[in-house]
């Protein structure tokens, strides 16, 4: 029982980390809190579903197309909407929230609700660990999540584009004097963030159904993880997703499934009260927050 709970908590943590990492990337680099993040997550899943079931593309092709589509949409959103309100956090939040709302409610209006909106798992197999069955998809989530985190770390520390990302994140003006185009980098950061949302949805959605409500849930979870970990700090995000992941799974097993969401939301409030910059937040973020 306990071993099973721990295994599922671990998987849940990776799911949370996958959900939050794109939001965190965008915010950490360009300072844009992308409130359309959850909508991109659901959008990618629906696009992939439409390609797979209505146009009958092969599964890998439809997944790749849906990810590319989201990446492009993220770039377009930055180029045509966010660029004009850059530097006004409130307008950015309202604009992205409006976009997210439109996308999600459009799907609700078009009738994309129901149990037939599911994606097949990648490999239909399950393993037996410490008295618990774990299916292949969940193991893939852990593997891909690990790979993605390592890849992102490598990308931001050892490629010139990744270094430019970090440069802009540290000090935009100084980065500009070194010839880094902050608008181009910010466009890329928003589109990469959207792309990561799509990647996360491609891996995670086969576990459940695609639903509009999922969009809001993912946004809330990404916010929860990022606030607790300290926005913009990758280490903090990973730690926070483990904290919430374990807390959620244990409340689910021992208290009741109704309380899982409340645990993460209460965690946000407590962290914000005690340490407003988040667990790994730096002094600079503290100034922004208080």
């Amino acid at each position: 029982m306990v071993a099973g709970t721990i295994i599922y908590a671990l998987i849940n943590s990776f799911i949370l980390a996958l959900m939050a990492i794109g939001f965190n990337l965008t915010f950490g680099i360009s300072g844009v809190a992308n409130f359309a993040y959850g909508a991109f997550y659901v959008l990618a899943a629906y696009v992939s579903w439409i390609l797979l079931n209505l146009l009958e593309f092969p599964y890998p092709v439809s997944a790749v197309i849906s990810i590319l589509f989201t990446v492009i949409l993220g770039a377009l959103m930055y180029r045509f909407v966010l660029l004009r309100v850059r530097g006004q956090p409130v307008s950015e939040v309202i604009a992205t929230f409006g976009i997210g709302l439109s996308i999600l409610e459009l799907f609700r209006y078009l009738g994309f609700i129901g149990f037939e909106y599911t994606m097949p798992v990648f490999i239909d197999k399950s393993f037996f660990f410490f008295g618990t069955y774990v299916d292949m998809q969940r193991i893939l989530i852990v593997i891909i999540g690990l790979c993605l985190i390592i890849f992102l770390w490598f990308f931001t520390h050892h490629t010139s584009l990744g270094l430019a990302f970090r440069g802009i994140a540290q000090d935009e003006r100084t980065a500009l004097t070194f010839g880094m185009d902050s608008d181009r980098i910010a466009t890329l950061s928003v589109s990469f963030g959207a792309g990561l949302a799509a990647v996360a949805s491609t891996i995670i959605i086969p576990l459940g159904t695609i639903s509009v409500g999922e969009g809001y849930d993912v946004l809330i979870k990404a916010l929860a993880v990022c606030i607790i970990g300290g926005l913009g700090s990758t280490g903090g995000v990973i730690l926070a997703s483990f904290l919430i992941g374990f807390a959620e799974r244990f409340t689910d097993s021992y208290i009741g499934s109704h309380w899982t969401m409340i645990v993460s939301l209460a965690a946000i409030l407590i962290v914000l009260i005690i340490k407003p910059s988040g667990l790994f937040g730096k002094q600079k973020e503290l100034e922004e927050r208080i």
Partner: protein
Amino acid sequence: MKKRKERIDRGIKVRSEDIFALCSIREMLYLSTPRLLPIVGCLVLPLVLGIYWQRVLLSVAVFALLAISWDILVQSSMVSLGQALFFGMGAYSAGVLNHYLGLSPFFTIPLATVIGGFMCTALLLPVLRLRGIYFAMVTLIIPLMLTRVIEATKIFGGTEGISGLTPLPSRWLELYLVLAVLLAALFGFRRMMDSDYGLVLKGINDNDRSVMNAGINIYWFKIQALFISSSIGAFAGALMTHVYMFVGMPVFALDYSILPIAAAVVGGPGTLAGATLGAFILVPLSEALRGVGGLRIVFYGLFLVIFVVALPEGIFHYIRRKYLQFERWVEVEK
């Protein structure tokens, strides 16, 4: 006869920059029309509208109140994405007082206004130090959390809610009550934001550090602004509870958070009149769009984006500028 153009406001402005030294009835009308228009409108509209559109007017007024409450918060540097919290707190307070204690609506509505205001302020007190999007995130989360809490603990009727509450004696009373409160809130809080007190609140928004430097406790002022704003929202919620004779989880729905923001953004933030104007445009529009059902929220989302990007000042500021630049033809003096 040669004509030249003359700006109406110029003469008034030349004679007195701030003090209104009005020379004619026409000038008085020019200045008072924009102020009288909403008052006369609110008094006359219920009489000429049918029952259906009276209901629409009621929800216009409720959303206008929520938008005003949003605008006051924004002017004091707190951006909220969860007006539903204020609305829902007021609604649940009124519902509980009415259902469990059996108080009449004439007691529950004022009580719920104050209690709801206090509870929202207390809930947001710990995060009052947060700025910008961090505060916005928390306000987005709290109403969602409250619905989950109600769902999990099954308090106050749980997912079913409490129904069969006492309605107000007549629909005229509820309509004129909410319109009177709307007008009082609009003009009263506009005046408040122009006073020294409001200046401090606006100062917190512009530069909180320098307000702190002036020896003012900004948190105390923020608490007061939060209480004022949440009381307005709670009043709207309490009234709607008695109109619908029901309170339940839908009071924390996203509609009550999004529509007020959309109204304030479309109308023009910073003047409470803009928020009211926005509600008077958006709510009837959404009634007209009732046929398209869920697509309404899509339109709100798009409205938000378009106005934030293309007309960030909002309709009210635009109209106001144009009104102050009205020109007329006058004869050239020999």
